[in-house]
């Protein structure tokens, strides 16, 4: 695909996909809302209070996430101990759990209708972001840097503040902005736990559009939020460009050491078990709650009585959408990733940002856009592909993140080495390019399937009676009266949790030693 025609063909897929399913709908939203009192919506008192709440809860969530995550990050970045990689994997589980499952878990904890529930759920979700982003650098940071500072007369604290912290700066900023972005656009958690009291912009868009049927106001809020997201991404990108330094990272094995003294062991294990306990508690309570009243909740899933959509149908729908959505996302994501890996740096990095937008923009905007725009020129709104297309759009950035580092790692000399050893051009493609990318592609597809299984924001807009998914059904059940229905919602959440966890753990096995940014 080194020819120009090849590259154009490669570009058509992702550009067309993002263009028609994201850029065009956003443009339609913009056009629709500008006409209808754009300014009035943005300056109203209720919008002001929603924006204020969105900002401060995101800031506090981000701060709390750091407070909870940093001790574990520090411990994982200093000590080698049995089970270390298992614990790293376990910390990641909450991050990939569907928002609806996490919402249900905190409802089970009795934290519905409370700001504490929202904040705690956000911390629960995002601890992994800090542990992986900051820990990824810290655990591979050559200790020689700190030792050099010490030998030049710095105390341990000074050495930390003057060397370690500045070096970690860019990764801390990255983690901060990712967590802020996620909590800024938080939807499922706030919708479930916030009741009528607490609403983020994201939730407000949903309610304007579905409850009050004021599409103009919903559109204006979606645009406002988009501007906020772009602002955050811009500030982040700018910071990374000015502050990031080329780091020579060491192998973890050379940096980590066993805990030596009793004090060190006490710190190590209390931090590890303390954090894991905090993260496990909601899930344990969720599972326990699904068994309240014996097996009534589980029996409800099999025989839901007069429920219009049975849980069985929802599970079938979700699995079908996950497979189709993952397929679409993998094809589009791989095309985008190979384009980025080969393109000039300017084109590549701007395309990279455009791709990240759907991830950051908010799933609700995507669903809203589908609803508003996909009636013409091609009417997709009645299509069975509508939900998987939305899921694929949300998942594409994950596929790109999962495959891009690998694609970049296929250096020209590997192809040359294969050729010198007697491989024909076709064999080179098969044994080098395809062989290297295959595993990464499967990891990307697995992530896409996990995203699809848990997707709630976009789906809740475009779901139809015949396409109800597990998360949307859980949400409906939570909103119905009756103890058995509630326990059934908990049981269905447990099923979704198990499905997602199984998927993520099998990806993690594939990833062992693989390159990847998540």
């Amino acid at each position, binding site marked *: 695909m080194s020819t120009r025609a090849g590259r154009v063909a490669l570009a058509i897929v992702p550009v067309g996909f993002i263009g028609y399913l994201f850029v065009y709908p956003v443009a339609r939203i913009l056009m629709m809302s500008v006409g209808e009192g754009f300014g009035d919506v943005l300056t109203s008192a209720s919008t002001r209070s929603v924006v204020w709440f969105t900002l401060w809860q995101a800031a506090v969530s981000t701060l709390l996430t750091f407070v909870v995550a940093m001790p574990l990050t520090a411990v994982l970045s200093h000590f080698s101990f049995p089970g270390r990689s298992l614990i790293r994997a376990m910390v990641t589980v909450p991050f990939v759990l569907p928002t609806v499952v996490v919402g249900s878990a905190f409802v089970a904890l009795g934290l519905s209708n409370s700001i504490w529930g929202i904040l705690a759920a956000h911390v629960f979700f995002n601890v992994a972001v800090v542990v992986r982003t900051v820990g990824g650098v810290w655990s591979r940071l050559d200790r020689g840097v700190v030792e050099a500072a010490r030998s030049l007369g710095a105390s341990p604290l000074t050495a930390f503040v003057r060397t370690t912290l500045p070096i970690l700066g860019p990764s801390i900023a990255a983690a901060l902005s990712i967590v802020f972005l996620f909590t800024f656009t938080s939807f499922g958690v706030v919708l479930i736990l916030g009741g009528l009291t607490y609403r983020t912009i994201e939730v407000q868009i949903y309610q304007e559009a579905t409850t009050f049927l004021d599409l103009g106001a919903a559109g204006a809020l979606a645009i406002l939020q988009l501007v906020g997201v772009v602002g955050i991404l811009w500030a982040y990108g700018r910071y990374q460009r000015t502050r990031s330094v080329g780091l020579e990272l060491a192998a973890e094995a050379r940096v980590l050491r066993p805990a030596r003294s009793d004090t060190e062991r006490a710190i190590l294990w209390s931090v590890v078990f303390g954090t894991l306990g905090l993260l496990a508690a909601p899930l344990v309570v969720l599972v326990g709650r699904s068994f309240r009243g014996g097996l009534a909740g589980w029996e409800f899933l099999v025989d839901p009585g007069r429920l219009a959509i049975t849980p069985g149908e929802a599970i079938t729908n979700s699995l079908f959408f996950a497979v189709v959505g993952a397929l679409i996302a993998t094809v589009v994501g791989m095309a985008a990733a190979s384009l980025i890996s080969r393109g000039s740096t300017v084109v590549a990095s701007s395309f990279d940002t455009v791709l990240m937008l759907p991830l950051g923009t908010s799933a609700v905007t995507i669903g809203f856009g589908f609803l508003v725009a996909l009636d013409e020129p091609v009417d997709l709104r009645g299509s069975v592909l509508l939900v998987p297309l939305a899921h694929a759009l949300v998942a594409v950035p994950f596929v790109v993140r999962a495959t891009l580092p690998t694609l970049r790692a296929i250096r020209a000399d*590997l192809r040359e*080495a294969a*050729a*010198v050893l007697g491989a024909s051009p076709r064999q080179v493609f098969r044994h080098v390019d395809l062989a*290297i990318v295959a595993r990464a592609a499967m990891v990307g597809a697995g992530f896409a399937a996990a995203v699809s299984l848990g997707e709630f924001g976009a789906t809740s807009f475009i779901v139809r009676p015949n396409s109800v998914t597990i998360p949307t059904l859980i949400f409906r059940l939570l909103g119905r009266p009756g103890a058995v229905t509630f326990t059934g919602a908990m049981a269905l959440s447990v099923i979704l949790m198990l499905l997602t966890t199984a998927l993520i753990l099998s990806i993690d096995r594939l990833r062992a*030693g693989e390159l990847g940014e998540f």
Partner: protein
Amino acid sequence: MLSVRRVTKRFGAAVAVDDASLEVADETVAILGPSGCGKSTLLRVVAGLERPDRGTVHWDGDDITETPVHLRDFGLMFQSFALFPHRTVGQNVAFGLEMQGVDSEECRRRVDEALDWVGMEGFTDRRIDGLSGGEKQRVALARTLAPGPRLVMLDEPLGSLDRLIRDRLMSDIGQLLDETATPAIYVTHDHDEARSIADRIALMRSGRIVQVGTWEQLCTRPADEWVERFLGI
């Protein structure tokens, strides 16, 4: 016998190789010169990875200038090693044999043999990313030698290694090239390496081959003042 005849290779305005001729019989020839003098490009032309703008490459009298790289049956060890990250040590060494269609039993035997040559027996199932620089170098060497190429080319094979490992590997490589009796081209910028490994040395400067001869010949009759200074005589 390899014969490079009046090869020129340009990249844009820059002339990387300028009218270079060289013959390699059953011997080891070192191409010695400062970095950026065109040594690696000349090697890539011989391997078939670059097409010369002018001149030809011959093997035993046949013109192979147009022969695609994978049909030349030459071995090239890359300066960067270029080991396949998705394959184990054994699978890396087996790659050339697989391309020849060698059956799996024979293949396994020859992989073991090649790893044995470089002192890496028992590493067959190890992953590439866990290897040290010296270990990677040995695997790359085994991968180059395993298919039994008719010519071996080594591009700064010791470039990135520290002194101690270099000295040991240098004598190992010399011994291996003798044992397998394969003609070889050894590209380096280091006099000591060239002197201890090669039968003859081709001195290269700014794309041109300035002088070819044994170390003694070069020292006793340097072609010009630059050779004298470069060799530090």
